[in-house]
């Protein structure tokens, strides 16, 4: 699925779109408020859905290699966060949908879960 389609599907606000590429392909996603759990995974998702709206949400993407993040539940997005997304080249979106609804919408369109139990 293209990031542009995800923006429409989640009625998302675009805070930073890396390279202005609305056709960047998203195949897999992870939905999580526990960043340590993301970092302990084997597979790197293309997209992170999270309720966190702090710098760690962006930095975790940068450290782990996740291209884009959607902040759910309409949580406010600080200018500082947008600047950081820019600096780290992570696409930053937000939606009013809950984590459950946003995940469900993406799942129903065939986005895969990047989770695979490691042990």
């Amino acid at each position, binding site marked *: 699925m293209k990031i542009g389609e995800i923006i429409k599907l989640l009625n998302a606000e675009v805070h930073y779109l890396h390279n202005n590429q609305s056709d960047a392909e998203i195949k897999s996603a992870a939905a999580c*408020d*526990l*960043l*340590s*759990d993301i*970092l*302990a995974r084997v597979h790197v998702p293309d997209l992170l859905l*999270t309720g*966190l709206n*702090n*710098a*760690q*949400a962006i*930095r*975790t993407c*940068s*450290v*782990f*290699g996740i291209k884009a993040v959607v902040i759910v539940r309409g949580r406010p997005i600080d200018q*500082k966060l947008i600047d950081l997304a*820019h*600096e*780290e*080249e992570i696409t930053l979106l937000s939606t009013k949908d809950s984590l459950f609804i946003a995940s469900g919408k993406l799942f129903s369109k065939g986005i895969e879960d990047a989770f695979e139990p490691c042990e």
Partner: protein
Amino acid sequence: METKFDKTVEILFELKVADVMRKDIISIGPSDMMSQLKKTLQERRISGLPVVKGSNLVGVISIEDLIRWLSDGDADQRVEEVMSKNPQCLYADQPLIHAVKKFDQFGFGRFPVLDRESGKLVGIITRGVIINGTLKKLEKEYKEEEIRQYRASHFFGDISADQKKVTLKFKISGKDFDNAGKASTTMKKNLKRMGIQPDIIQRAAIASYEAEMNVVIYTNGGVMQYTITEDKLSLNVTDSGPGIDDIEKAMQPGYTTSESWVKELGFGAGMGLPNIKKCSDKMDLQSEVGKGTTLKIEILIGEDHEVK
């Protein structure tokens, strides 16, 4: 927007091979004996040499050639009978990015550098001198940037590098959540630019980030020091307290002393230290209550150690 990463790549295009190469060439003659080569490699602690006649390059000889010769048990021989002729070379006026590509392509430890016009040997280039030269230049750029934009100033600390290793130091401020993780993401970019394998970078970045978050969350600050040599990446994280009273317990998956504000950051599930261990080839955690904690990890860079 120009990022720091773009800048570091830019440097590889800007710098010429001649800017960073070693000019104090240690060489050997084609008619010198293999026993002499053995002595030179041992004494100078190097792993290969250009073979030079007059000031013309006639071949290269490496420690592997020496080992092969030793294991064949042949009588003493002239270097020219064992050396590789027509070696791959670089020209002094080529941009450094060419050298990086050539190392990737051939996997050799060193390349002789020739003057394009005279064809004479003018220097030697190794991975170490490339990293060294690039980081020195990078440091300058960061310093200049700091004058205009002091935001960058407190995370990019000391850089020092010699022929064999590169050391980068970052100061970490306790409870500074806006900057928490900046050392690790900056380091990840540097490792990428150095051409380190992606899976090694991934493990290093994850371990580094969890370690950095612990320093920011639990302490009043500390120092993270990265050392990169040819065969491994070492990370040393030191803070000055409060220390951990039971290290064995702290290492257990799920063990945490974190309060709810830590969980609101996305951490504090007791997964940090176990994940650091999983990402490292070697881990050592020392702590004294009231004094501080030192975490040392190593990740091997050698080809055989790609995935654990």
